[in-house]
């Protein structure tokens, strides 16, 4: 049986290394797998520009039209909250910044801990609401599959374990921290092989969509 400290140093050492390798290699493979397929050039006379259309849609697709917002309000609001929440918690919590400084040598200002704490709670609530909505909404229930569940679980897990570790609920500090880090590692390992990849491929997809539309003179 590993001791508490051994567990923590494993997740901080070999565990993190393995997860990072799978994460980085997986992402590179996935992106190459897509880009190497290539795409035929368009021989039709252009009515607008692919480039500006593509870049435009990368930005504009973040803002739904009023009528789309009305039709998909919950998905958009909850989606925005948990994405933004995750972003703030991951990148602006002081101990995380220290970790990034260790790994990549860069650091930036943090947000006050109570703000992060509240953000984490809000994100957890949003993700819980998302899963309830998933089971209550006809379309989402129909689309739902194992991957959706897995991805939801590995996304909310680091938030929950982080929250528990910070508030020292239940176990001792090192164990809680180790569990938190482990949950992040699981997220990293799952990431490249699931829809979590959209964090990267969204830029390609939006670009393609915008470029194809832009070429035809439509802002998409």
């Amino acid at each position, binding site marked *: 049986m590993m001791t508490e400290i051994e567990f923590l140093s494993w997740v901080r050492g070999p565990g993190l290394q393995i997860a990072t390798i799978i994460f980085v290699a997986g992402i590179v*493979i*996935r992106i190459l*797998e*897509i*880009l*190497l*397929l*290539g*795409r*035929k050039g*368009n*021989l*039709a*006379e252009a*009515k*607008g520009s692919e480039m500006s259309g593509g870049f435009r*849609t*990368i930005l504009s*697709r*973040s803002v*739904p*039209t009023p*009528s*789309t917002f009305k*039709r*998909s309000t919950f*998905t*958009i609001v909850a*989606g925005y909250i948990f994405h933004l929440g995750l972003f703030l918690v991951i990148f602006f919590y002081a101990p995380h910044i220290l970790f990034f400084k260790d790994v990549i040598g860069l650091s930036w200002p943090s947000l006050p801990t109570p703000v992060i704490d509240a953000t984490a709670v809000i994100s957890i609530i949003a993700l819980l609401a998302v899963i309830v909505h998933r089971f209550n*909404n*006809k*379309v*989402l*229930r*129909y*689309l*739902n*599959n194992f991957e*959706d569940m897995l991805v939801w679980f590995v996304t909310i897990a680091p938030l929950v374990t982080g929250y528990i570790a910070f508030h020292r609920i239940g176990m001792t500090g090192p164990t809680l921290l180790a569990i938190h880090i482990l949950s992040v590692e699981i997220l990293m390992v799952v990431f490249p*092989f699931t*829809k979590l*990849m*959209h964090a990267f*491929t*969204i830029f*390609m*997809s*939006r*670009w*393609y*969509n*915008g470029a*194809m539309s832009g070429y*035809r*003179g*439509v*802002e*998409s």
Partner: protein
Amino acid sequence: MSASLEKGINALKEQVDSSVASFFSSCVHCGMCADACLFYTETDDPERTPINKTEPLRRIWKSEYTLIGRIGKLFGLTKKVDDQLLTDWETLVYDSCTLCGRCSMVCPVGNDIAMMIRKTREGMAAAGHAPEGLIGATTRAVTIGSPMGVKLPALQAQIGHVEKDTGMKVPVDVEGAEYMLLLSSMEIMNFPEFIGAIAKIFDKAGVSWTISSEAFEATNSGIQIGVSDIAAELVQRVVDAAEKLKVKTVISPECGHAYFAIRWEGPNLIGKPFNFKVRHVLEVLDELRKDGRLKTTGMESQKLTYHDPCQIARRGGVIDEPRNLLNMISDNFVEMPDTGKMNWCCGAGGGVSSNERADEIRLKVFQRKKDQLDAIRPDAIVSACSNCRIHLEDGLEEYHMDIPLLSLTETLAEHLE
């Protein structure tokens, strides 16, 4: 595996490129595309969620073009495409999608779902899972030259009537004309007034134009059914005629899919750029307006609205032109809620109207158009696609709404100075 299934799978494999792969990789199963699609909003049937319609293509992408899918295949874990799947999906891919592209404008990760469904049709058709009606239309397009079986004598007869009614000459096979006009069968048979309208407008504007007796059909059933070879053959006929008559520009008529087919898919289908331009008739008319060659008189005082045909507006980029033209002749032009590139499809494009099996659903989803119209209660609807027009008339009748349909070109011709 049956030979036709194998053909279908190969056709699907050919459809996967970097854009398709990135789209499938990005889908987060958020369901927003369903809320954008009239076949879902008006039926509440989750199977009709746009991205779900691409399932056959998704399975091929996953099992053939992703590492994890290929590993899964070794262990029999990756889902396969079989005849049962294609049978089950036929009504989703053909009857429940007009390729209108509204879902592609809404998906938050940017997936062009309509394009993916169009590609899925390539596999379905190759595997023999296309609807009877579309197969018939496509066969007629290849053998007779028109999906509705309209032959040259029928066109000549209609031209004869038009010439008698208008006293104008309709030029046929005039070499060196600037423009070559294509027509859809629907126009030739149901709306020959369109030809007369063009004759009048072009005469006033001093435009040299012609119709080719060898390639007058604009509709491309090959695209609707999803058979690129046939689509290419139909495009080639137009190219040959345009080159033979040495025209500078080919005009696509008031038909949505015809425009998308010749303008945007055409050169890619035959594998080389055209040496003439392709313009939608509304683009040509708007050019004439800009040059001061199209002058109108009088204003329609009735409340007019404009129905954007999907393939002309959202998928085709002709959005401002009809509005410029309408403003010339109407001082009471009102937009529907959700208009231009976000307009809702009439419910009958993309081959749906050629597919009798889809008659019931296309009228059901017309409820969406009805709601849009109810919001503004226009006196008349102007549009620029004869397929939209026929279906709108059908839908209006079904829902007991008494609103006349007008063609933009014809309405302009009535207001010529």
